[in-house]
């Protein structure tokens, strides 16, 4: 659960890699990917912290349909944090996989 929360924050940052997105959009993307294990509303405290930590900035944008939306975009710091995580994650994932994968039978051993 803690691991999931820690990783979720980088999934949120990754969603903003190419373009800014508004809250509902982020929530839906997380939900559809299956990475969000809790309810939609818990994403907002996370976004709030990312904003306070200067990893993302927000700007209000008018919409052609419905109310104005607050768009979230990566700051330089947010991009750097995302790049660092992207760099470290594969090795980390492989290390954990190595622990979790049952040892394979040595070659020549009948299956």
């Amino acid at each position, binding site marked *: *659960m*803690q*691991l999931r*929360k*820690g990783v979720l*924050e980088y999934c949120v940052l990754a969603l903003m890699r190419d373009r800014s997105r*508004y*809250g*509902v959009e982020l*929530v839906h993307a997380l939900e559809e990917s299956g990475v969000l294990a*809790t*309810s*939609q*509303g*818990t994403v*907002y*405290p*996370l*976004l*709030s*912290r990312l904003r306070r930590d200067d990893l993302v900035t927000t700007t209000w944008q008018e*919409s052609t*349909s*419905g*109310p104005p*939306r*607050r768009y979230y975009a990566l700051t330089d710091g947010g991009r750097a944090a995302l790049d660092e995580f992207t760099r470290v994650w594969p090795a980390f994932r492989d290390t954990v996989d190595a622990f979790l994968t049952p040892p394979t039978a040595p070659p020549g051993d009948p299956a």
Partner: protein
Amino acid sequence: MKTPADPVRDYLSAVEREASALPADRRQELLADLAEHIEVTRAEHPDAGPGEVLARLGDPRTIAGTALAEAGIGTGGAAWGRDHVGAPAPRAKVHPSVPLLLITLPFLLATVVPDAPALQLCVGTLRIIGAVFLCTSVFWTPVQKTVGVLLTLVLPTTANIIWEATTIAPAGDEPALVANLVTLALLAATSTWLWRSRRA
């Protein structure tokens, strides 16, 4: 569609209530974010009822708990350790040195200035306050607290009463000073042990 009992307003009130431990600006920010989410979702899905939108947003208590955890209230975790959603707020933390100093230092003063009844009363009071801080502190287990109070307060006080009320102790200032120094050593040793064994 407004009904007399507005479910959105009720929902946001519930979040506000559950998040009362959050600083006011963060609480308002959370409410604004959720209100925006509800408004945008309803604009994008006009056929979805407010009940459905709110149900998918989730339990107000869970959201407030996440907000408290993210704000570092109720947790001391780093980025990968943030969890304890809905964990109860900790008791106000008195620095662990406070009870130990309150228990030990006044006694040192009483040893240096032995014949001042008013001072002795103050010393006793301060030491009892120290024991109360010790017992309510989050830094020690109940067993540690019990041992600490027994060694620093109950044992010395009992010994003192026996010393004063009976004739088994030798008369004179010098034995009394030695007894006080022994007590002081006991207090210092117990305080040192408590200090070293305190929780991080």
